[in-house]
């Protein structure tokens, strides 16, 4: 058992990230791209890696207020992510709908549709805040492995 636990401790050092854009204004997405790719924040230090396919993902970051049009696509992609996975809502839009809350075209808050684990408020959140959220998500992911 301890051996398995040890292995799991190693496994959490490799959280692969995938982002679902639920109709966001780009702000959070640009910040995610910034967080993911540029030398200044370098999430690869934590073993994180952005992957192109949902099937490779461990931590899924959802941005945007989840428009009606994108809802089905987002759910389909979400289901393609193999378990165990952790969901992070990035920005205020997925958490509550933010400024678009009252619109007819918006399905937020997303916790009606996806089991959200971590919220990162901000409009958009700074990259450091996103990293903080990802760190929280990794801790949750360890328990689920």
């Amino acid at each position, binding site marked *: 058992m301890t051996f398995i636990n040890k*292995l*799991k401790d190693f*496994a959490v*050092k490799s959280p692969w990230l995938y982002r679902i854009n639920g109709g966001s204004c780009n702000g959070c997405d640009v910040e995610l791209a910034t967080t993911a790719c540029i*030398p200044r924040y370098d999430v*690869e230090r934590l*073993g994180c890696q952005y992957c192109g*396919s949902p*099937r*490779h993902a461990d931590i899924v970051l959802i941005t945007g207020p989840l428009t009606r049009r994108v809802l089905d696509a987002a759910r389909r992609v979400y289901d393609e992510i193999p378990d165990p996975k952790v969901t992070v809502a990035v920005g205020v839009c997925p958490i509550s709908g933010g400024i678009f809350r009252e619109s007819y075209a918006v399905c937020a808050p997303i916790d009606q549709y996806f089991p959200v684990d971590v919220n990162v408020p901000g409009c958009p959140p700074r990259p450091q805040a996103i990293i903080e959220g990802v760190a929280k998500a990794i801790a949750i992911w360890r328990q689920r492995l």
Partner: protein
Amino acid sequence: MTSQIATLLAVLLFPGGLFALVLGLALKGADRRVAARLQGRVGPPLIQPFFDLIKLGFKRTMVPTEASETVFLAAPLVGSVAMLISAALIPIAGVYAPDTELGNLLVLLYLLAVPGICLMLAGSASGSPYGAIGFSREMALMLAYEGPIVLIVAAVGMRTGMAEGHWVTFSLTEIVRYQQVHGWFLFDPIMWPAVAAFAFFYPANLGIVPFDIPEAETEVLEGPLLEYSGPALGLFKVMSALKAVVVLGLGIALFLPLPFTGPLAFVGWLVEIVVLMLVGVTALRVSAGRMRIDQAFVFFLKWPLLLAIASVAAVALAAGGAS
């Protein structure tokens, strides 16, 4: 019986199997770390590929509903096993020489084609349109680079074989032994076209930028690997790690085997392969952009093929002049 056990050990432990796997993953880790440094980042720890592999072991493998399950799951397995065996065929100068029955360049060439074919099968079996594009691109790329490598190998074989008194040899052990006595082919002007052609071959075979076209993430999402997850994806990672060892090991055996024996030779070989990985793969990978498949195809028909033909001609002429 003992020779069979020795072969089994060679495939499973050293220099194939466990050793090649650990070395391959370590090479990948070093590659990522150094690439990060070149890009001005800290980068992941050296043993990151091991973490990735352990992680993938804990995940579920999902088989898409449109996929043909047997082929989908068999492809990564076959690819990894083929690479495991070919790792045992690579001689390490002064440390390990493969069984003469096994250590044949032609067998190695066939085995080297297997991962590509597996990727193609994986792409077409996954039932995704991106997998299909990945399939066609992998096929085109293989057609482009398989020609030159056969000619390169023939040139090296002829150079050794003619000097040894017969027409051509396909025994890697013999090629290594010849160079240990007569010096590296890398410094032999007649072999320079072959060296240059090989320098174009290995990035394509390893699937790194600028020739990572079948798996281009931003174009076809990861192509054949798109639908893979969990342990099956892990097997593909194992395959590519082993492939790095095999291809670079082949390069060392063909052009620059060390003339030492014993532990020094082993350490020397490790240094060689790490340097090749960092200079030949990492630096290239981060300093170039991707080619388009049609550009790559034309490029391969032009330069490496010409160079490979030139190398065979040069070897033949040199032999003719000498005799």
